[in-house]
C-alpha cells in the first residue's frame, strides 16, 4: 500500500523536519516543495 509506505516515510523523517514531508491526497505521494532541497541533501542527490 502506497499510503502506508508514504506514512512510514513521514514518520521516519518527522523528527528531522518537524512536519510531514510527503503529501498523500490522491493516488501518488508528493514531496512538499519547502523540504525538497533539504531532502535531496539528506539522500545525497
Amino acid at each position, binding site marked *: 500500500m502506497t499510503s502506508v509506505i508514504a506514512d512510514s516515510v513521514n514518520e521516519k523523517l*518527522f523528527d528531522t523536519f518537524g512536519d510531514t514531508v510527503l503529501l498523500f491526497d490522491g493516488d501518488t505521494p508528493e514531496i512538499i516543495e519547502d523540504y525538497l532541497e533539504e531532502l535531496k541533501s539528506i539522500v545525497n542527490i
Partner: protein
Amino acid sequence: MKIPKRIASAVINSLKGGVVPRIGLPYITVGRETEIDALLHDVDIIQDGGASFRFIVGRYGSGKSFLLQTIRSHVMDRNFVVADADLSPERRLQGSKGQGLATYKELIRNMSTKTRPDGGALTLILDRWISSVQTETASESGLSPDTPEFEKAVEKKIYDVIGALNELVHGFDFAKLLTLYYRSYINNDEEMKAKAVKWFRGEYSTKTEAKQELGINILISDDDWYEYIKLFAVFLKKAGYNGLIILIDELVNIYKVPNSITRQYNYEKILTMYNDTLQGKAKYLGIIMGGTPQCIEDTRRGVYSYEALRSRLAEGRFGREGVRDMLAPVIRLTPLTYEEMLVLTEKLADIHAQLFGYEQVITQEDMIKFIQLEFGRIGSDSHITPREVIRDFIELLDIVYQNPQINISEFIASDEMSHASSVDESDVDEEFAEFEL
C-alpha cells in the same frame, strides 16, 4: 528559530483572520504551562487504559481554541489519534434531525495522527493496522507472505483484536465491519473498502442502503454515535496507537439552542460522557470541551442548568479567586500576562520576517510600546483578548513591510494605527447579549 514556509504562512494567515492555525502551534505557544501540564497528565492516564473529561472555559478570544489546538499537536506527537469538531446549529451532541450524528461525522472526518495532521486519517489508520499485523506475523513466524499458513496466522491476529471488541456495546457490529474491511484489503477490493469506510464515517442514512451495499442491517445513528467513539478508542489502542482524544469546541451552540428540552438532552449526553470517563466505562479515551464562562455557568441555559452536571462540576467550597485547582474537571483560562504577550509578539515578528524574507526591523522597544498601547485602551483590562492584540500586531507588521519608509515607533504612537474592531456579535458584552420583555 527556523520555521518552514508553509507553516509560517498558515500561522500568519490564520492569526490575521482571527482563527487558530491547525499547524505550527509549537512555534507560537506562550504561557499556559499549568494548563498544558494538567491536560498532559490526563493523557498519561488515558495511555494506561483510563479516560478523562475536561472543560476549558474562557472568554471569546481568550485562547480556548488555541489551547485545544496546542493539546491536539502535543498528543499527536505522543502517538494518539485526535478527532476534533466545532459545534454549530447543525452539529450538536444530540438531536432529532441528525445533529448528533453530524458531530460524529465531523469528528471522524477530522481524525488526525502525527503524520496526517490535517484530518482524514481513518483509511490510513485501518491500512496501517493491517499492514503492521502482517509485518509482525512475518517477523514472529518466519513464514513467507505467499503461503496460506501466513494468511491464516495474520487472520488469527486480526480476529484477536476484533474479538476483544465484541464484548463492548455495538462491538459486534463494529467487529463485523472491521472484518469486512480486512477481507476487502486482502482481496484488493477497493470498492468494498470504500463502502466499509463510508459506514465507519456514519454516512449511511438508511438501514436499507447499508443492507444493499454491505449486506448488514445496522448503522451508526444519532442515538448511539458516542458508543462507536468508545469502540474506536479501544480499537485504536489495539491498532498500535495510545488512544483517542476528542476535542469539542464552541459549546456555546448548545447554550444557544432555543428549545429547553433539546438543551437538556444535549446536557444529558455530556453527563453520560462525563460519568463514563470517571466510572471506567470508557477506556483509552479523553474528551475535552471548550466553552465560554456563560455557556457553562449560566444556570438558566448553560451546562449548570442541568443540575446533575452543576453539582458535579461547580467549584467546591474551597475554590476562590487566585487559587486554581488544576485537577478539577473545569479549567478556567486566566488572561495572558504582558510579558507573555510580549514574547508572543517577538515570535510573530520573527515568523513574519522569515515568511516574507526580510531583515526584522521592528525592535523590542517598539513591541513594548505596542503592548503598552494595546493594554492602555479603555476597558482593556476586562475586554482585550489575545486574538485582537495578535490581529493588530500582524496588521502592523504587514503595513510596515509594505511601507518601509514608515518609522515604526512614530507610527505606533500615532493615531493612524487602528485597532482590530470586532464585528462578531458574540463579542457583545454578556450584560447586553440578550434581554427578554
